[in-house]
């Protein structure tokens, strides 16, 4: 297993005490879902069982609430709060245990609606009103013209109550300035950060007996992880977990989203990503499923 040392920015370093989460507690992490449907959904008068938020609907900008048609012939209905398209095209979405939704801008095809200098802001959609407002403006340098991306991944961690985010803001072809953030949603502050990793998808799980933050690299077809302790801080070394090389139709997918099912299997949504604005109309995404092999301490691809 590959190990890389990391630079962890923490306010405190706990010497001599065990900050790890007990294994029996860790086993439930990532499997138990706490998220609730945002109460504001009722404003749409949609069938809430068939409704979900989306940022990837064709010919629309920003966030959208969609109602999946009941039958094939039925048209998909959509609903949008007036504030949802004010900040351009959006990418990752994650909802918390109160029904608040976090979303981040990601340029699509061009930057007309997505000013590269404003791609490192997490927006929050209020659970009750549905209004979208800037939530955390993460620090960023003036963007290099070769990288128009900022935030690429979001995931609310039910176990700690923190919001995890990945950003590639400031990175260039030769320099990785990416960061992985742990954000406290209660006060919109950065709780911890991990520097030097350009990542896209992110998720937490404890199926291995240790609570780990898994993240998909933006430059390579690989998933890496780092431990998250009981204080919600990064702990220890970053380690390699899974290669997506040669998997799927393309063979060089990057992990856009990482989730875990009720059995603790890792679900990886793989896409092409090369730090450009290519966007095939038909979304080329492949789902890869991995199970934890307790005998060999590794993730196995489920064919």
């Amino acid at each position, binding site marked *: 297993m590959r190990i890389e040392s990391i630079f962890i920015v923490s306010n405190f370093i706990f010497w001599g005490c065990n900050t790890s989460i007990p294994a029996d507690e860790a086993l439930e992490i990532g499997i138990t879902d706490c998220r609730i449907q945002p109460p504001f959904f009722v404003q749409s008068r949609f069938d809430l069982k068939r409704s979900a938020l989306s940022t990837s609907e064709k*010919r629309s900008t920003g966030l959208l609430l969609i109602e999946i048609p009941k039958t094939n012939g039925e048209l998909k209905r959509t609903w949008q709060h007036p504030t949802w398209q004010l900040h351009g095209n959006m990418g990752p979405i994650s909802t918390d245990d109160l029904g608040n939704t976090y979303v981040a801008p990601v340029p699509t*095809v*061009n*930057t*007309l609606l997505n000013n*590269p200098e404003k791609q490192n802001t997490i927006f929050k959609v209020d659970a009750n009103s549905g209004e979208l407002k800037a939530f955390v403006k993460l620090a960023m340098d003036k963007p290099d*013209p*070769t*990288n*128009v991306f900022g935030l690429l991944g979001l995931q609310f961690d039910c176990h700690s109550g923190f919001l995890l985010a990945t950003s590639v803001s400031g990175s*260039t*072809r*030769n*320099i*990785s300035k990416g960061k992985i953030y742990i954000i406290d949603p209660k006060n919109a502050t950065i709780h911890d950060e991990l520097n030097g990793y350009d990542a896209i998808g992110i998720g937490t799980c404890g199926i291995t007996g240790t609570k780990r933050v898994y993240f998909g690299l933006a*430059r390579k077809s690989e998933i890496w992880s780092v431990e998250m302790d009981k204080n919600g801080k990064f702990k220890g070394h970053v380690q390699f977990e899974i290669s997506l*090389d*040669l998997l*799927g*139709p*393309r*063979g*060089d997918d990057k992990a856009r989203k990482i989730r875990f099912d009720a059995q603790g299997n890792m679900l990886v949504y793989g896409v*092409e990503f*090369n*730090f*450009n*604005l*290519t*966007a*095939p*109309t*038909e979304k*080329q995404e492949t789902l890869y499923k991995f199970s934890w092999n307790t005998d060999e301490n590794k993730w196995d691809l489920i064919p």
Partner: protein
Amino acid sequence: MALYGTLCWHFFVGCNPQGNSTSTKSFVDTANAAAAFILDDSTISSEAWMQSYILKVRIALQNKIPIMLLESKDSFVLNAQNIALTDSRFTQYLFDKNTKQPLRNEIFNIYQARPSDLGKVKMENNSKYFRVELYNFALNIATIAIVNVTAKTVVDVNVFPDLQPEIPLHLRELAIKLAVKNTKVCKALGYKPGETDALMANTKTALNNTKCERSLHLCVAPTFVKKDKALWAIIDLTDLKLVGIRWTEVNSTGPGERIGERKLKFEKIMECYCKKENTLTRNGWNMKYIITNSDGLKISHVQFKNKDILHSVKLVDWHVSYSGTDGFGYSDAVGCPEFSQAAVVAVSEPKIAELFNNGKSVGFTLEQSFQSELWPQPCNYNYLQRYEFYNDGRFRVAVGSLGRGCGNDGTYRPVIRIFFAGDKNTFKEWEENKWNLWQKEAWKLQSDKTGYNENGYQYLVGINNASYGLEPSKGQFNDHGRGDNAWVFITAYNADKDEGEKDLITIGPCCNTDYRQGPEKFIEPMPESLEKGKFILWYVPQIKNDNAPGREYCWAESYLDNGVYKTKTYPCMAGPMFIPIK
């Protein structure tokens, strides 16, 4: 192992890589990336071993069941094959669903099924089960049948899109021959390799598995190790050609990081054409060229017979709008394949070629194409930039679309930026039978009522002491162009303001149908005087696509050739010619 220097001894040299800062970690093996070769030649080898395989393919395509069968002396294997062919689930992807033409299909492997192959199939005692693997080259589909040869039944069939079975021995040998017989491989190695020098072309080891990530063709990589380096030769078994070659550093576990089609092409283009300017000197012309972040292939410092002509020319945007839906379309930038703002990226190197007129060489062209990954599928694009330089001093800045886009009601509006050399320049328009000087920034549309002088020039550009007639396309350039219908904008150059000298982010939206294509933002609200003598010409042709049979324009269609899909293109070329006034 052949000896050094027996037949060829040149180490190939790609472009010179630009050095990385030693203070930062490099994510790219720049030297090997720059020295890679991309091979664009689609000609199939005429050698007997290849022609023999092609003949087998053609014969198979003429069969009632158009499958190239596995040759074997094992009666169980042959029985399993014959039984599988009787199952309609197994043979469901043999023909194109629209044209009913046969697709290239081949049985790759037949072997006794392992328990893991049987899945939910309940084994009968005393029965022999075989696994039959069929690969469809055209659709990139594997169909796997489980056959009970004892009961003569097909017990299970599964179709796997985008899955490629283990390649059979004869394709392994074909791949190796394609590699070892290629002169580029030979030159790279510095000797003519033997077929045994290629490491396991069909094994599932880390040594030679690869993918053609963009074309989704069946690809393998015969790999040649020389000292502490490995040469990857990527072979496309769907198109039966060498895609490219690249070295990697050998590490303790094998020949380094896997090289695939995308990595080979993208990193080569980045190192050789995006990170550095190249110099071109030919037929009295001198210039530099570079693929930009988002403004296409840019030429600069263009001279003819040592006289400065152009400061720079580039293609800022492609605006594509569809009349069927209000406001629907795309504003595409073209440029470098990685770390760029390009929506449609360069996937080949710039091409320099001789320019002929009536069989006689009259100059040369510099071309660059940009292509969406899934082109020619709907809503994917392929754009071409072509600069023409003539021996008599004429030059043309041409651009074109090769389709296919999201519909047959599309209008393409490429935004070309032309910055002339010199600082005492003038711009005149042919109006009412005379040349009228433009005093201020302005724009004008070419239309049916546009006046041209006796030579067909709409404008006259004075560059220092020389003059050039600007002749827009009215369909006269023998490139199937049907006229430019172009907007021309003249904007004053301001050294203290960046109005497109650096890479421009998207200059305008997709779907404005009037003059508001982007350059007007440098004119309005108060047009500046042009008296300072330095200005930019923005040229925005308007090209309507067409898919009517026989009239295709800005279009592309797939057709079958030897059972695999190829693309026929119908480019729509536009752009002005500049003719020196003697």
